[in-house]
């Protein structure tokens, strides 16, 4: 009690004089410099005489720091460890705070006496000092008198690792979570003990589970006891998280080695058969690297040796001009080797024999066989689950691609089915929809409102364009499907170029509303972005809507009648002309909506529609025309097929498209009219 207050009083006494000489210190006055030196010598001396323990004026942390002053000033990754340990060993509850400040580079050293302080405000001058051990104000010092400690990143890493222990038991759950995250990011053997100690008194259930899981993960890698490690590994069976695989995979890393006979104590992964598992040359090179056999002379070295030994246009007894075959060079080199001027080249037989004398095998870097066996078994169980989830993910991908194709193709399918015409400008109606979305967004800054506005507007615009096309061109080309195809192609190139002239060639963004950002994540393998879900929902809505229109409304009845036999329908009082116009408008309008949807995740360019048109045709052809079920089936088949082929060959999407088209050409062989073939007159071309 008495000593505490005495020490506190002394601290004030010790701190008080110091600010006083400093301004003159840098002022280069010789007198004041001397005065300062005297003070510097005198004050601690007086204090030392007055106080009984030498470091009583400093707290435990300061004591440790002063004992290792040199190493603290110039801390390095290697030397700082014991100091940090000693600071923690003081048991002071201010140790974590100090370590944190240290690594944040806000610990200062007073030049005059070498004592370390925290400061209140780094930018203030003079700085208000804070005592490390008590947190009490420790006077002021001018900025010039204070040296900042600048630990490098290595030192900060050591400090951070030490801090983790405190973080794991911090009263604040957020800080505990942050501590766990730090370990997860950079696990280290030293964390294991700290983590184990922090599990039992964890009040938060979720954090406790996380700690336990992390403890098992660390045990797998750093555990000392083999049985515990195996148990930890086996506990992860079927856990598909990425971190588990990242922990287990290094256990199974191997190294290729060789020996005269297979060593009994090595944890051998497999033996390598020279010639099949490992190339003879590689095996021989390993032997040569170890110095067991003479180095092989490769072709380049051989040619260099030949060039080096050219004399009078001859080498090895033959003229240089004749060395234009491999065999001639081989012979010349052998002749040179026989004279001893170059090292002999081990023949293929020699090399094979040398390799045959040794056993080549791969060993695990992990010495314990029980651990590697457990890791392999666990990884296998994980991989099979990952594969299963991978299929699920692939299915979702295929589904979302299918819904895009469905949206893009359904309009085409309707017009083709009802009128028997292929509309090559369909892709440009998609483009019109996408640009509508873009333009609306220029006027309505709120993304949600602009999308809601753009969808009907895109429908209307594309509907109008479709009706205009039908009235002006297609009506006059009835029953000439090939000419219709080409005429609509003319429209297509004109519209595409018009869009280019208006909007330029660069891609225009159509930004999705904020609530469509991100992805719905089920686990580390399966996730799907919200935009794709939205497109799927949109496709579903349109499927239901179209089904309803075609099967439950007067218009649908008329459309189906015209599809089946337009003359008969006309004689029953239906106007095929009107039905054609409305159908064409409807199909085009849906293309416009598809354009908005596609524009949300792809860039809006004048070629947007053209890049989907062939896939749309494929969808229609595969599905069969004039039937929304056919389009659905076609889109589903093409979407999932494309994803499947991409999965087989993920690096090459071009090849995937090529193979898919070839597949479709073959598919047409077996079902020339698509999956859902129409019967009746509409099935003709």
């Amino acid at each position, binding site marked *: 009690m008495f000593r505490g207050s005495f020490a506190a009083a002394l601290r004030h006494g010790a701190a008080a004089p110091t600010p006083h000489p400093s301004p003159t210190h840098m002022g280069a006055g010789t007198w004041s410099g001397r005065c300062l030196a005297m003070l510097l010598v005198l004050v601690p001396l007086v204090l030392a005489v007055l106080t009984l323990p030498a470091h009583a004026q400093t707290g435990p942390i300061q004591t440790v720091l002063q004992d290792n002053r040199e190493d603290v000033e110039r801390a390095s990754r290697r030397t700082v460890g014991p100091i940090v340990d000693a600071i923690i060993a003081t048991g002071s509850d201010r140790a974590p705070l100090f370590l944190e400040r240290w690594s944040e580079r806000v610990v200062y050293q007073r030049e005059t006496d070498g004592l370390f302080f925290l400061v209140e405000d780094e930018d203030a001058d003079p700085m208000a000092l804070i005592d490390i051990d008590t947190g009490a104000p420790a006077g002021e010092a001018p900025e010039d008198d204070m040296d900042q400690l600048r630990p490098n990143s290595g030192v900060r890493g050591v400090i951070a690792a030490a801090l983790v222990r405190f973080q794991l038991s911090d009263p604040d759950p957020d800080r505990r979570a942050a501590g766990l995250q730090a370990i997860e990011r950079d696990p280290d053997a030293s964390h294991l003990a700290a983590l184990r100690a922090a599990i039992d008194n964890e009040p938060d259930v979720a954090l406790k589970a996380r700690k336990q899981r992390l403890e098992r993960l660390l045990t797998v890698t750093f555990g000392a006891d083999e049985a515990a490690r195996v148990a930890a590994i086996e506990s992860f069976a079927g856990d598909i998280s990425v971190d588990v695989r990242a922990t287990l995979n290094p256990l199974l890393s191997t190294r290729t080695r060789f020996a005269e006979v297979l060593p009994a104590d090595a944890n051998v992964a497999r033996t390598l058969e020279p010639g099949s598992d490992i190339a003879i040359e590689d095996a021989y090179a390993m032997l040569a690297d170890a110095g067991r056999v003479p180095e092989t002379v490769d072709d380049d070295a051989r040619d260099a040796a030949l060039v080096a030994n050219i004399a009078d246009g001859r080498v090895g007894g033959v003229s240089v001009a004749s060395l234009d075959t491999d065999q001639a*060079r081989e012979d010349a080199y052998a002749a040179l080797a026989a004279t001893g001027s170059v090292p002999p080249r081990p023949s293929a037989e020699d090399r094979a024999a040398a390799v045959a004398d040794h056993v080549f095998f791969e060993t695990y870097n992990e010495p314990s066989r029980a651990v590697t066996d457990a890791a392999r078994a666990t990884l296998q169980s994980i991989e099979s689950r990952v594969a299963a989830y991978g299929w699920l993910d692939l299915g979702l991908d295929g589904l979302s691609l299918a819904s895009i194709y469905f949206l893009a193709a359904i309009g085409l399918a309707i017009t083709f089915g009802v009128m028997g015409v292929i509309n090559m400008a369909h892709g440009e109606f998609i483009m019109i929809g996408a640009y509508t979305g873009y333009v609306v967004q220029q006027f309505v800054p709120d993304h949600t409102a602009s999308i809601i506005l753009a969808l009907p507007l895109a429908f209307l615009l594309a509907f109008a364009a479709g009706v205009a096309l039908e009235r002006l061109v297609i009506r006059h*080309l009835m029953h000439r499907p090939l000419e219709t195809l*080409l005429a609509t192609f003319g429209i297509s190139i004109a519209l595409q170029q018009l869009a280019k*002239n208006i909007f330029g060639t660069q891609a225009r963004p159509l930004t999705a509303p904020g609530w469509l950002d991100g992805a719905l994540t089920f686990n580390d393998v399966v996730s799907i972005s919200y935009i794709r879900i939205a497109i799927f929902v949109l496709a579903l809505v349109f499927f239901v809507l179209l089904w309803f229109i075609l099967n439950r409304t007067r218009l649908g009845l008329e459309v189906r009648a015209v599809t089946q036999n337009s003359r008969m329908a006309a004689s029953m009082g239906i106007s095929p002309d009107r039905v054609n116009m409305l159908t064409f408008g409807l199909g085009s309008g849906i293309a416009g909506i598809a354009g908005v949807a596609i524009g949300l995740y792809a860039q809006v360019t004048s070629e947007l529609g053209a890049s989907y048109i062939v896939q749309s045709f494929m969808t229609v052809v595969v599905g069969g025309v004039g039937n929304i079920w056919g389009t659905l089936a076609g889109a589903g088949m093409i979407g999932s097929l494309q994803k499947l082929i991409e999965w087989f060959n993920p690096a*090459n999407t071009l090849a995937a498209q090529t193979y898919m088209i070839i597949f479709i050409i073959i598919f047409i062989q077996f079902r*020339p009219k698509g999956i859902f073939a129409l019967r*009746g007159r509409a099935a*003709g071309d």
Partner: protein
Amino acid sequence: MERTFLIRHPSVMIFIALLALFTLGATILSEGFGIGLISTSFVKTLGKTLCLCLVAIAMDLVWGYCGILSLGHFAFFGLGGYMIGMWLMYERTKGIVVDQLAAAQLPPTPEEVREAIGAQIFGVVGGSEIPTIWMFADSLIIQLALVVLVPGLLALVFGWLAFRSRVTGVYLSILTQAMTLALSLYLFQNDSGLRGNNGLSGLQNIPGAENISQDVVSVWFLWASALALGAGYLLAAWLVAGKFGNVVRGIRDDEARVRFLGYNVEAYKLVVFTLTAVIAGIAGALYYPQAGIINPAEIAPIASIYLAVWVAIGGRGRLYGAVIGAALVSLLSTWFTSGRAPDIPLGFYTIEWVDWWLVLLGFGFVLVTLFAPQGLGGLVDRLVRNPRAARPQPARPPQSAKEPA
């Protein structure tokens, strides 16, 4: 036989004479052999146009006469170009490589030469191995044979598959378009063995003729193209004039009836499809050495569609129509897109043809389809009043005549 054929068809003779006159005129005006009034690059443009006319004749045969709207004939054209391009590029690179290696101290082995050629040609796609499909690239004879064989075989297999399963009309068009797209996507890959999207380049340099100026080479190619066009025109005219032509036209007008008359419709279609693919391949093999470069973008479906547009504008079902369409539209296209066409200032906006040519072409084509379904050739017919060629275009069979599938 030949005499009577030509006498019975004066239009063929007129065409051959005009072609000869044109070639002679171009030669006299060229830099290589004449007074140098037209530049070498324009001679090349003329030569290329003749090749395009040849492929348009092929298109007219298959579409105008046989009724198959193939959107794949420009792919055959490109394949022909690739086949000859392989020889041109390989031999030229070989010449360069041998020159380079001659500086080395040891004379190069055949393996070293091959390796260096591989590195030179395929370095751009990150490889140095010469792919297997280049195994005959050092032989002009074999590559020339491949110019005919590769498009021919592809057309044979594809056509057999398609016609066998009775794919007709727009379905067939879409299917040929898919084939074209598949081919161009395949060639776009770097590991297709044909240098991916870089394509083959430097094709204007003829191996063995390095010292001969392009002025002269361009005229040689003009002659070769004119010769090929003349031969192709004769062949096509002879084919469509005889019984074969009647059957083929019958297939176009009513396939089912021809089948019921006992003709093997599929075989006829397959012959026409394959033969025209071969003609397209030859045209491509002559075109690309004049263009100097070929890449997969040339094969994209859009090119084949343009081909159909040329033939439609020129007038289907008449060979000179195809030639007129291809020559006119491709030359106009070159003129407009090269920026030589004068801009039209409207005060508030200046129409720059580089930007507006495609709009003009697109809408113009629609107008031709709507109001002049016979194309420009139809105008020629009206002037000449040739009773044979001016037979009504029966391209719109009444729907009731069709059979339900």
